[in-house]
């Protein structure tokens, strides 16, 4: 398991707040709509929800930081 479709689903969960909030309310429906296979839907339903929220906030913060650095003409994206 771990298709490109599943990675895209995760990337969207991590970067699209509206999609994520909808998933947290209606996980089965959103996972099914994403066209995931049966195993992937199960994995999506078992997702570490607090971790998802924390990670998504952290990514959001990083994206915002990157945008503000660009405005200041500073280099994008410091590493981890």
């Amino acid at each position, binding site marked *: 398991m771990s298709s490109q479709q599943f990675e*895209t689903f995760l990337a969207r969960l991590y970067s699209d707040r509206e999609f994520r909030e909808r998933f947290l309310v209606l996980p089965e429906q959103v996972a099914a709509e994403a066209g995931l296979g049966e195993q992937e839907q199960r994995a999506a339903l078992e997702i570490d929800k*607090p971790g998802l929220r924390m990670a998504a906030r952290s990514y959001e913060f990083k994206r915002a930081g990157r945008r503000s650095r660009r405005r200041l003409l500073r280099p994008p994206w410091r590493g981890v």
Partner: protein
Amino acid sequence: MSAADRVGLGWRDALAASTYVHLDSIDVVEVILDDYLEAPARELRALRSLGREVSVIGHGVALGLASVSTVATSRVERLARVVNALEPQIWSEHLAFVRSGSYEIGHLAAPPRTGSTIEGAVANVETVRRIVGTLPALENIATLIDPPASTMSEPAWVTHIMAGTGSKLLLDLHNLYANAVNFGHDPFEYLCAFPLNRVQVVHISGGMWIQLESTRRLLDDHVHDVPDIVFCMLAWLAERCPQPLTVILERDGHYPEFGALLLQLRRAREALACGRAKRSREAHELAAV
């Protein structure tokens, strides 16, 4: 500390002047390659001249190699231009995915730890090697979320990728520590499970605890000092790894007085020395038996 061990600092604009002044205390600097993707040739030449003053290694942050998606050759070619201009002694990238489909995560995310992402990472690293001409060392990342759909542990997954790519490991000790404490592992047992014979570079940094409802996790943020336990882990590593280690302190903001960073470099040297001395003592004891 063995003669071949080195201790240095991430090269940051805000620290550049102080770093330059204190090169007598800094063996090596690590340049973020992605900061120079758009740099004109003149700026790359200037960066290369830094290599005449101090050893330079490079660090990439946005290729997204640990993915079932194929890395875009155009991205690799842009990075190759910087690597080839800088000619770093070592360069590295992360075991992460950073985008998929039309979605840019904006940072390093842990992919599902599966056979598919191992295969994807191995293929992507081979593409990178072909275009850049050298293999990157590969870095373990910190994650706040236990990557869904994983079928194996992080150390096992990293070990398989190292074996498949032939790459060296850039072991980020704070990332490893954060993942261990966030997901219920003993940090030293967790460290022991990584392919330590592949470690070439070590990152040290700091972080902060964050809480959401009843869940508390350690965020690796690079804006706090290196915690004591990371220095203990470094000493432990130096005791067990015979190969030379290049240790880089990463600091990305909330910069303290430069003296505080130099102190952390000194503590890293002491940790290495402590681990090496223990290793040497044990070798002598064994020889005497």
